[in-house]
């Protein structure tokens, strides 16, 4: 057994600059952990608590301890939790005591580490009703504590609130925590460290304060303390207090009416006078209010109908006359090169973003408040004024009605095109090109009555955009973006697109941009390919010959990226990114040309294209793999049964994709592509099904695979069954129990939150699609009887999801379809069972009278099938 001294040395060695020493120490720590976990954790806690030990070894001890309690990956986290819970109580009690003791350490870093570890332990133990005395012991004599201990205690409470869910903490404890925290924030608290810790703790604890925010007195008190803290002389406290306000804006929107006047004054002062870190939070408060109101208004169609939970208080609208000038002022505080810096975020950017949200929240009303500013500054000699005016204009284009904006935009268009070619400022041009893009995004398209782009100006607009694509990378990127929306507006134009005369020139210009030496700056190359994709997507048959010519060009580019010279890791990363873009582009082209009348000519490239995609799988890049896989799915659909010839070579990559747990997007996309292939090959997929099914079943049983991939895997069972029919027989014994247990899980997983409900519904949909495919696949086969034993459970599943009343329309449609499929395939064998089910009565009737015609259609089908099943 290691003695304490040795642990200290190991922990210090593990941070040594000498790699060998470090590696040796790390191995020993691992060995120690595996041989005696309880002893290992206990000595780490002892090290952390021991004020005589070096700070570095104590900090690392805390960190290792923390990592022994939590992990990012769900399955790993679960293992760690189980491991901790299985430790003997004596060890755990000792560790807890060490941790609490550490909170009194004079060393700030060590205290902070202990705070986090305590929260992790609490996160495991409180839901199990273990360590119930924790909150009590933290708060027992908080008023008598020395400032540094008080600070650490408050910080611990903050982390604790972040770590555990409100429902495992009793209201009595919540009240105590909030009281302690809010008192710590109070101006009467003389110690800034304590006050800062308390303010940050409140931010974490706000989610616990539901009951307290419902109580007028308690809420007034909390709000007063928070508002006072925004005026603290200490900048960090002001910033933390504004963070609390931001969080309150979204969590307790409906409780704010009473405080809005005060909050406006506080935020206005901060935006105008305070340090940027504080001003940004103050702006964010208004952005959050707008977010809330946009959501509310979207959900309830603009009017408070009385049946909404949260009414719109129109705070933004009321604040408009003062808020807009405040935001406009910020626009003049640009940084010189902010457009060249990907990570930049400053008050001008935040102000413009907020202005855009205000426009969405109030609509037409914003226009008169902004126009004078734009008119005054748009032609000023100072680039800051011109840019601010343009940015203001671009920001308010989403929200107000086209009617309100049309005249202004028409008047501004020529000015903008002129600025793009003539303005000396890169910054102004960047914002102007972006604004043009916004004009095309929101005011150009089939839904707009009077078009912005006409025969008279189309030529000029395109010429200017193409010219601008030769400007600096950041400006050119915005021009590509504008072209993207220009094309998108002609999405459903019909047979004759106004872009047709310029098509060739646009394509060539975009390819030229993609080939610029500086194309990797400012995302320029990506923007160029994205615009190219959209131009192709929205093209008409008139230009299909030109799209066809693009095929060998893009294929050649992809080929060139595969001719590997030795590349640096940075170069390789860029190469992979380019491969992803090119595969994406080919995918768009396949979807465009892969059907009649271009299909025949296009498919002559298929062999070569498939060859390239397969080589992309040889490179190590998840994005490129995903894009290639998606493109192959599209190709399979276009090729139909002919796709069979690619299967022998492609199969291993399919399998590889299904095994890619780490990059689960690749796995998800592969599952989808199997569906495409099933529909293309039908029973010719049979030889590959053993392998595919084995892998899919493994995926389902894995707890490493991201849960979002599981519903599509179930749907994929259905695709396979439908393709191979009764040959699915041999997988019945494996797939049915899996479906059954997933069904049980999803029937009653009535989620606490929307996200859970959404997932549950997607899982149900996958399971139901599997059942549909299996039933339809077995129809008219003598082996139908194999399915009869599963009928009671499936009907029960349908009944229970109906009873839960939380299914969405998609599930409703699939579910009622399954009822029909079951009746259709099993017929009179299940007539009695069906008649006993709720689904065949209430649920079916509900679907029959649905407004959604796809649900109604599926229900008619089910009714039909049931009538036949029970009439025999």
């Amino acid at each position, binding site marked *: 057994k290691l003695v304490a001294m040795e642990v200290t040395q190991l922990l210090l060695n593990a941070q040594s600059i000498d790699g060998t020493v470090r590696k040796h120490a790390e191995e020993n720590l691992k060995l120690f952990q595996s041989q005696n976990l309880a002893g290992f954790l206990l000595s780490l806690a002892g090290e952390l608590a021991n004020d005589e030990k070096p700070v570095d070894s104590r900090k690392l001890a805390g960190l290792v301890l923390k990592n022994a309690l939590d992990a990012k990956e769900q399955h790993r986290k679960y293992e760690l939790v189980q491991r901790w819970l299985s430790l003997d109580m004596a060890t755990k009690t000792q560790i807890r005591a060490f941790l609490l003791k550490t909170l009194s350490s004079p060393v700030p870093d060590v205290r902070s580490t202990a705070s986090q570890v305590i929260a992790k332990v609490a996160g495991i133990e409180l839901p199990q009703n273990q360590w119930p005395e924790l909150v009590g012991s933290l708060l027992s004599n908080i008023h008598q504590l020395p400032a540094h201990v008080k600070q650490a205690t408050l910080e611990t409470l903050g982390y604790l609130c972040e770590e555990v869910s409100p429902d495992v903490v009793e209201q009595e404890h919540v009240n105590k925590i909030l009281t302690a925290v809010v008192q710590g924030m109070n101006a009467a608290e003389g110690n800034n460290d304590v006050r800062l810790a308390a303010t*940050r703790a409140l931010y974490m604890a706000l989610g616990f304060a539901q009951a307290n925010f419902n109580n007028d007195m308690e809420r007034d008190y909390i709000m007063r303390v928070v508002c006072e803290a925004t005026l603290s002389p200490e900048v960090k406290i002001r910033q933390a207090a504004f963070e609390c306000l931001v969080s309150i804006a979204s969590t307790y929107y409906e409780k704010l009416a009473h405080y809005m006047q005060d909050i406006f004054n506080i935020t206005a002062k901060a935006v105008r006078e305070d340090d940027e870190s504080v001003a940004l939070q103050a702006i964010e408060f208004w952005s959050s209010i707008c977010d809330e109101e946009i959501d509310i208004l979207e959900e309830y169609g603009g009017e408070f109908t009385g049946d909404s939970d949260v009414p719109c208080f129109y705070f933004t609208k009321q604040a408009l006359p003062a808020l807009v000038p405040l935001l406009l002022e910020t626009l003049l505080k640009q940084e010189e090169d902010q457009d060249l810096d990907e990570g930049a*975020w400053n008050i001008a950017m*935040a102000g413009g973003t907020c202005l855009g949200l205000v426009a969405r929240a109030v609509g037409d009303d914003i226009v008169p408040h902004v126009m004078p500013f734009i008119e005054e500054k748009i032609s000023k000699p100072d680039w800051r004024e011109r840019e601010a005016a343009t940015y203001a204009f671009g920001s308010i284009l989403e929200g107000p009605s086209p009617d309100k904006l049309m005249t202004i935009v028409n008047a501004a268009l020529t000015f903008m095109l002129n600025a793009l070619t003539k303005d000396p400022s890169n910054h102004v041009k960047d914002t102007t090109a972006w604004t043009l893009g916004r004009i095309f995004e929101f005011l150009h398209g089939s839904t707009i009555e009077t078009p912005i782009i006409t025969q008279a100006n189309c030529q000029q607009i395109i010429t200017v955009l193409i010219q601008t694509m030769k400007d600096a990378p950041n400006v050119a990127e915005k021009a590509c973006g504008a072209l993207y929306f220009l094309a998108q507006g002609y999405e459903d134009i019909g047979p004759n697109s106004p872009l047709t005369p310029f098509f060739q020139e646009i394509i060539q210009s975009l390819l030229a941009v993609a080939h610029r030496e500086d194309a990797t700056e400012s995302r320029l190359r990506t923007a160029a390919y994205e615009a190219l994709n959209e131009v192709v997507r929205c093209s008409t*048959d008139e230009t299909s010959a030109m799209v066809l010519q693009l095929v060998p060009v893009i294929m050649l580019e992809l080929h060139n990226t595969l001719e590997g010279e030795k590349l640096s890791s940075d170069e390789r990363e860029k190469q992979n990114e380019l491969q992803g873009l090119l595969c994406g582009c080919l995918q768009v082209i396949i979807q465009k040309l892969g059907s009649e009348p271009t299909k025949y000519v296009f498919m002559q490239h298929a062999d070569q294209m498939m060859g390239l995609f397969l080589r992309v799988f040889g490179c190590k890049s998840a994005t490129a793999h995903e894009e290639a896989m998606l493109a192959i799915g599209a190709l399979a659909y276009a090729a139909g049964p002919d796709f069979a010839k690619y299967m022998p070579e492609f199969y291993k990559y399919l399998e590889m994709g299904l095994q890619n747990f780490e990059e689960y997007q690749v796995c998800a996309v592969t599952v989808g592509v199997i569906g495409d292939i099933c529909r293309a090959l039908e029973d010719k997929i049979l030889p590959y099904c053993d392998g595919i099914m084995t892998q899919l079943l493994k995926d389902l049983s894995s707890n490493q695979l991201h849960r979002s991939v599981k519903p599509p895997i179930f749907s994929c069972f259905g695709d396979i069954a*439908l393709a191979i029919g009764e040959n699915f027989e041999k997988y019945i014994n494996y797939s049915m129990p899996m479906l059954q247990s997933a069904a049980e899980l999803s029937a009653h997983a009535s989620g606490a939150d929307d996200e859970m409900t959404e997932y549950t519904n997607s899982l149900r949909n996958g399971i139901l699609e599997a059942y549909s495919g299996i039933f339809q696949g077995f129809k008219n086969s003598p082996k139908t009887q194999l399915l009869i034993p599963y009928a009671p459970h499936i009907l029960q599943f349908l009944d229970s999801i109906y009873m839960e009343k939380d299914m969405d329309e998609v599930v409703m449609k699939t579910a009622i379809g399954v009822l029909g499929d079951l009746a259709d395939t099993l017929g009179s064998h299940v007539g009695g069972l069906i008649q006993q089910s709720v689904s065949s009565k209430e649920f079916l009737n509900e679907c029959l009278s649905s407004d959604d015609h796809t649900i109604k259609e599926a229900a008619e089908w089910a009714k039909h099938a049931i009538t036949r099943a029970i009439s*025999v």
Partner: protein
Amino acid sequence: MAPHDLRRPFKRRPISDQQKRRDLSLLRQSQHRSDAQQRARNLASSVISLQSSSSPDVDPETLSEPMPDVDTTGHESEASSFDIRQASSLRGPEARKWFASQLMLPEWMIDVPENLSRDWYVLARPAGKRCFVVSADGTTVSRLRNGSVLHHFPSALPGGARKKGVSGPAQSYSILDCIFHEADQTYYVIDMVCWRGYSLYECTAEFRFFWLQSKLDETGACGPPSFYHKFRFSVVPFYNCDQSGLHSAYTGSLPYVKDGLLFYNKHAHYHTGNTPLVLIWKDERCSQYVIDTDNNGQVPSQQHIVLELQDDGKIVTSDDPPVVVNCLNADFIKQSGLSPGSLVRFAIGDGGLNCVDGKFEKADLQYISVSNRARAFADSYSKIMFQYMARHSPLKAEDLASVISQENQQDKLPEVEMSD
């Protein structure tokens, strides 16, 4: 605890093009899955089993029989089931036979049915080719009564064109019973058989006409031709068969050339093959083709009829059961190179026809030839009789009107008494 990052997207689209590609792929996949499901389901739902389709010597009689009613009896035939889309892939004689058996064929009106004004609709039949229009999988195909393709075109019907955002889900298909009117290149819809994958075979004419009127227009199919919609569709106006309805249909001005009047019993389902619940009537005023023409388009001096030769030498109509018109002797059959199943053309001699209770007592037939190969059917009893009456003592428009007015008086009489 560090301050929280509050950066928002700046001058960026909220959704990347990569995400868009991903979303579009998922959408495409789920649509195709749904299509595949729908196809599997349609195999049972709308669908007609083609009995003994594999045997080469199909008796035409079997084909003109109404198909077994799969929908309500639950007894699916052991023979392979076809839906209309599979049938679309049939070629040659098989296709002809299949399609020929799918249309509802009116009988000719040789006497006026009861309750004409209460139970029947009347409409002016457009002159032109009767056809089935099937829209599915992004294309539209029209097929004539003999199964041959008339047009293959994009249309605004559900699933009728390969176009984004067409109305309705891609998987659904629709079948319309139409007449293609050459002069204005318009498909005049006289009945709706399937709509968005939903079968209307089992619905009453009243419902089908209502559905037709309310649904067709929604799709934009009645709009002018465009790139994705090559031919205009139009609903034929139909009226309750009362005085004013009959008058409107008979004399009203319509955008198309009329070819007789069609009468639909409101309660009748869409019944494939001949049915007495739909009737056709013509006179010179509302049709150019009252009296049948010969192969050269001339009205022959004698009435021509086409009959089918049976195994036992009987020559019969296309009715179910067939009506025997006469019998040929074996020598004559051999000498003329006829075989059972042959369609044979005769002229009616001066001896004329004599019928009692729907049976021929006497028929003076003169053999002309074996009929044109394109023909799928013999003439029906009602057609022979209508043509015969048209040449001798036609059923006139006035007769129809007077039957209706008599019906009205019968209806009104008790009302008058009660109010007195």
